[in-house]
């Protein structure tokens, strides 16, 4: 790795850390703003002043805010995320079970969207007439249709009418890969359709702009084949906006995954969060939101690194 690249990586890592810290503070405070006493909610009808006070002391809720934060943050660094209010299960264990589901869903969906979206986008940009109308229609439709509605329609078709795929349920990949994929196809497809539409549009726009650059003319003047121009030169230059969108869209997908997990009853972080929120189970909510945020921050970090590799101009000095 060249020294310029190494410095670039270190710079980016250094920037990431304050962001994560700020995020943890933000998450911590936001959750504390939840009105209503979580302990009372948790105890339900068994709540009386004595019980409430005991539980509060047990959970450290009577300490000053700063102490609570430091205790929690310290725990985070030891990968101790606290315990679920309700079930008392360690949250790190919960996350360990649920995170792979959400990650599998998100990354499979993004993977499929990229495999479909980028080639179609390139074709739409380089072969205006034939591919243009069809891909535009697909792209616009993909963006407009609400993804969970599409999911429901797919369930209607696949699980209802044709009885091909199960409408809900989950099996971990390591237990039974085939069954796992059978359960995941519909959820992944649902997310991937809208996602591929975004990627298609971005790819097409970026490619069209790049293909209009003067260096493309010079490449043609050199007699380089159109194929090489499109895939070797144009795509590389067009890649940066595309990768930017992919980075942002991972975040959007993580959000969309929440709804899809609820829809298809997948045991992922999203569904855990929705349930925890309604239960005022705030250690879980805290840990869950922070986890998702960190995933997103990491994705952005990787995106930045990829930029640097693609375009040497970006590695020198920051904007």
């Amino acid at each position, binding site marked *: 790795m060249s020294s310029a690249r190494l410095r670039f990586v270190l710079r980016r890592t250094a920037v990431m850390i304050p*962001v994560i810290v*700020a*995020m943890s503070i*933000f998450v911590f405070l*936001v959750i504390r*703003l*939840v*009105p209503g006493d979580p302990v009372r909610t948790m105890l339900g009808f068994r709540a009386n002043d004595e019980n409430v006070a005991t539980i509060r002391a047990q959970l450290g809720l009577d300490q000053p805010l700063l102490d609570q934060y430091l205790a929690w943050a310290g725990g985070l660094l030891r990968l101790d995320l606290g315990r679920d209010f309700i079930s008392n299960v360690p949250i790190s264990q919960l996350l360990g079970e649920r995170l792979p589901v959400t990650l599998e869903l998100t990354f499979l969906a993004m993977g499929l969207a990229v495999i479909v979206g980028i080639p179609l986008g390139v074709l739409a940009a380089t072969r205006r007439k034939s591919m243009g109308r069809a891909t535009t229609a697909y792209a*616009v*439709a993909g*963006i*407009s*249709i*609400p*993804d*969970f*509605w*599409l999911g*429901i*329609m797919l*369930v*209607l078709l696949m699980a*209802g009418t044709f009885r091909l795929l199960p409408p809900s349920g989950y099996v971990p990949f390591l237990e039974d890969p085939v069954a796992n994929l059978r359960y995941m196809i519909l959820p992944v497809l649902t997310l991937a359709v809208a996602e591929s539409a975004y990627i298609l549009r971005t790819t097409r*726009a970026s490619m069209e*702009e790049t293909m209009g650059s003067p260096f493309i003319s010079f490449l043609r003047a050199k007699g380089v084949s159109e194929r090489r121009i499109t895939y070797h030169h144009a795509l590389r230059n067009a890649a940066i*906006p595309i990768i930017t*969108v992919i980075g*942002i869209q991972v*975040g*959007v*997908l*993580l*959000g*969309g995954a*929440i*709804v899809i997990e*609820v829809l298809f009853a997948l045991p992922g972080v999203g569904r855990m*969060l*929705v349930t925890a*929120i*309604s239960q005022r189970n705030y250690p879980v*909510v805290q840990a869950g*939101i922070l986890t*998702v*945020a960190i995933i*997103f*921050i990491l994705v952005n970090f990787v995106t930045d690194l990829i930029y640097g590799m693609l375009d040497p101009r970006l590695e020198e000095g920051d904007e």
Partner: protein
Amino acid sequence: MSSAAASLQARRTFGGALRGLTRRVGGREALFGIVIMLVLIAVAVFAPWIAPHDPEAIDAAQVLAPPSLEHPFGSDTLGRDVLSRVIYAFRVSLAVAMGSVALAFLIAVPLGLISGFSGGWVDTIIMRPLDLLLALPALLLAITLIAIVGPGASVALIAIGIIYLPIIARVVRSSVLITKGLPYVDGARSRGVSETAVLRRHILPNSMGPALIQGTVLIAFAIQIEAALSFLGLGAQPPTPSLGVMLNDGRDVLTLAPWVEIFPGVAIAITVLAFTLIGDGLRRRLDPRGVTR
């Protein structure tokens, strides 16, 4: 002029005017989008006169009836007319979507202008906290905010508005940065125009283009987000009608009466489509270089 020549003349000018309009909005598709949007707004505004039935009217005799003349979209589990329910629910969705974007504009545009124009530590103070908001997926943030305050349509509106603050502020700020550096701004300054006047007269109008485009795109997203929130039970609460809630309820009778599920979804899709097309057209006209997302 004879009547035949006159009507030919009229058609030519109409055709010319139409072509001019098409070009101004950025294409045929955008024109199409505008037409749909106007129709949708009309439907929302005139709902009480357009809806064929009372959306809450229960009719035990017509439970889960397929689409017919009397119920063009069919009826649901309580015999209520789906078309009327869709119209009223759509009203709410559209209001939330446009309201949230309007709210975001109200706060974020001044912030973006000041931030971009002043630069330096003012810029940092304004932008850093907003950037933090960007680090979370939109839906997640909305769910969190609603979890704090409690569910409801107005809460959803505010939550979505908050999510949009950093996006709009960034877009306005980028435009300001670009405009600020243009020679005619220096020209105005060298003529002795005051800073506020420069901001108001030169920077502001030229920074609004990309913001407008972003606004239409965000309205489209907002419809989706509101639907997702209601679907999860976090948006408009009964008795307020909501497309997302209808989509959730429709699941129960999916195989028996798919129309209960299909039509609310189609309504959302058409609305998002309209605003997306408008956004695309505007982008072609105002922001070919891509300051927006």
